[in-house]
């Protein structure tokens, strides 16, 4: 699997090279001519004050979590060993897929027309993944044993893979984003170090990852060779963090799918509309749809909140990508259910209603809206469609973790407990979302994150 993902990365790289070679004039003479600049807005707006209050609430909840323990601060039980926090992690990682999708599109697939969205998507991804990690630390019963993840090698555990993937991906996101603050504060030396060593770091991280998951020196050496070669070839292309983009795509492919693998062990609990041996692939495909959809939503929100021009050409181009990824995801998922004979009974009963809502409102309807060029370029239609896609995938993750889970409780499985999150569980999750939005706004004010406004609309 690692090898497969590596090859995919390598393939994408050569494909990109081919496209550069095919049109050298287009790629070189016209470097991305978009200037970024910090926005000039007051910081303490009413929205931001509300966000600060929610963040304080989150901080208190986090303290309560460690002061009272899991049993004292949450309603988790032996029946609901996982709850709201896991839902938030899954949802958040899915919608944060926009970071790797955008970086992959811009650098690997050479979609330079989407360049203006790159920085904000990466910052959103960095903040999201960092706070997912914070949620996980709160959720773990014995987080101070985290170093055991480095000492043990249970390569069959999806949780092990998720932990390492997410951990390494946070560092990749940080490296992807670093040029923005370095440029802003003119740290030329740091910038040089970044330019020289980020490729080497990717090779190191990939090698470490392959070694951890295989404990095989030969495969690790192969990974080191392939990625070092890529890093060496990519050295000349300054300002194009192609290695980081490849690493981001590789690691994201791995952990988005292995989040689905987590639930492969629960065929007896998860509803048949959701459980499937190919769940990992569904999770990966849906994350691309959700990620690109959220990038569009964020761009539209930014445009409205800070009264900036709406770059509808790029947004509808992104909408087209959402359309195709959503289509592939839905066809894949429904075809899988058809092959396994699950489709005929999928719409009956209470779970059937959940499934129908998810597929129709979060899948078919936005597909119809996004399919037509004239609807896609209309801001209101695009907004509604992308909102439905995002909500549909969020609903999918909520179903997988809570609503479609038929938990039977601890042995003898006669008396399952019920679950409703406590105020502290809500507090940590909502507080961290507030922190993401607030810090994003702060970043946009301090750093050149968003494209400079021009008198008339360019691309």
């Amino acid at each position, binding site marked *: *699997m*690692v*090898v*497969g993902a590596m090859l995919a990365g390598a393939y994408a790289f050569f494909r990109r090279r081919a496209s550069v070679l095919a049109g050298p004039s287009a790629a070189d003479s016209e470097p991305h001519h978009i200037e970024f600049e910090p926005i000039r807005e007051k910081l303490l707006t009413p929205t931001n004050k509300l966000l600060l209050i929610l963040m304080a609430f989150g901080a208190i909840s986090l303290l309560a979590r*460690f002061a009272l*323990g*899991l*049993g004292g601060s949450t309603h*988790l039980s*032996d029946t609901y*060993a*996982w709850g709201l926090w896991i839902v938030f992690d899954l949802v958040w990682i899915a919608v944060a897929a926009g970071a790797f999708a955008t970086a992959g599109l811009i650098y690997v697939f050479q979609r330079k027309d989407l360049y203006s969205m790159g920085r904000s998507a990466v910052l959103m991804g960095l903040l999201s993944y960092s706070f997912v990690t914070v949620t996980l630390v709160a*959720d*773990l*019963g*014995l*987080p101070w*044993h*985290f170093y*055991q*993840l480095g*000492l*043990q090698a*249970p*390569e*069959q*555990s*999806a*949780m*092990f*893979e*998720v932990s390492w993937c997410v951990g390494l991906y946070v560092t990749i996101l940080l490296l992807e984003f670093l040029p923005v603050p370095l440029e802003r504060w003119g740290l030329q030396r740091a910038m040089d170090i970044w330019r020289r060593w980020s490729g080497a770091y990717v090779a190191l991280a990939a090698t470490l990852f*392959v070694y951890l*998951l*295989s404990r095989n020196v030969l*495969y690790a050496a192969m990974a080191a060779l392939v990625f070092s070669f890529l890093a060496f070839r990519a050295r000349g292309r300054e300002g194009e963090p192609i290695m980081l983009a490849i690493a981001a795509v590789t690691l994201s492919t791995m952990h988005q*799918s*292995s989040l*689905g*693998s*987590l639930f*492969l*062990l629960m*065929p*007896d*609990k998860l509803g048949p509309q959701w459980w499937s*041996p*190919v*769940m*990992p*692939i569904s999770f*990966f495909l849906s994350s691309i749809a959700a990620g690109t959809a959220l990038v569009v939503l964020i761009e539209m929100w930014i445009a409205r909140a800070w009264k900036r021009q709406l770059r509808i050409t790029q947004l509808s181009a992104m909408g087209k990508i959402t359309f195709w990824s959503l289509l592939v995801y839905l066809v894949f998922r429904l075809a899988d259910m058809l092959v396994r004979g699950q489709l005929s009974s999928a719409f009956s009963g209470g779970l059937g209603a959940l499934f129908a809502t998810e597929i129709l409102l979060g899948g078919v309807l936005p597909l119809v809206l996004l399919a037509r060029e004239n609807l896609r370029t209309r801001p209101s239609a695009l907004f509604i469609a992308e909102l439905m896609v995002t909500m549909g995938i969020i609903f999918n993750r909520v179903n997988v973790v809570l609503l479609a889970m038929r938990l*039977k*409780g*601890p*042995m*003898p*499985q*006669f*008396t399952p407990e019920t679950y409703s999150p406590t105020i502290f569980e809500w507090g940590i999750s909502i507080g961290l979302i507030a922190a993401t939005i607030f810090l994003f706004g702060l970043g946009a004010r301090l750093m050149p994150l968003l494209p400079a406004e021009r008198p008339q609309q360019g691309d």
Partner: protein
Amino acid sequence: MTQPTSTTPIKATLVDITKCIGCRACQVACKQWNDRDGEETQLDFNLGFQNPATLSAKTLTLITFHELPDEKAPGGLHYLFTMRRCLHCLEPACASACPTTALDRRSDGPVIYDANKCIGCRYCIWACPWGVPTAEWDSLAPKIQKCTHCADRTEQPPPMARNGQALTDEESKQYRENIVTPACVKACPADCLSFGTRDEILQKARNRISDHPDKYVDHIYGEKEAGGTSVLYLSSVPFEKLGFPEAVSGAFQTGAACRTTGCHGGGCYARGRLRIL
């Protein structure tokens, strides 16, 4: 995860439900050996004298009470008692889920837990088809708790001498066998529990069924379920009437099948190893 090999015999326990008298000596012995706290008594109308209702971090072994309608039985009810605890799968889902090998299957069968490795993710609780692992929810450092098939009893040294007299080989072998027997099996006064290698136990179970086909249903629960377990059950009534999940084997074979049919590309390896690596 250590794969079962022919060189290491798997230790197994047979629970013959037809013989259980519901005295709960095993439940008490388990609590004593594992040094678990008592539970607050909460009787449930539907569960009769069963106490407590479920396994928990304090209760690793539980006798469940069952009243089944039976016209021939006095009062029209047939009383059955079952010992519920970890079944010690040969391919444990909990251990395949564990990101730090805190849960691991020893080569001789027991699925054991090492709290020093555990990060407390609780994936094992949802991965287990029987709901065996439980967490210490009232602790600030909540460990997972489960039956270890008394794996820690095998670490005690057997005595070397008795009354100043060195033991013969035969005698020390007897002591050794006595010591490694799980606390619950030692405590059982009704011959409901027996302990031995999995092959011996399976043979014993088959013999009992063939000797008394009128008394037993022709099903050794745990022989095939979830790929085989090292705690095996015999019963006089179909197991689903006692609340044993029957979907376990079928559903989990689907999970296992996806590993063999090769959809590795999507990361479908939860119950197997990353063969492609």
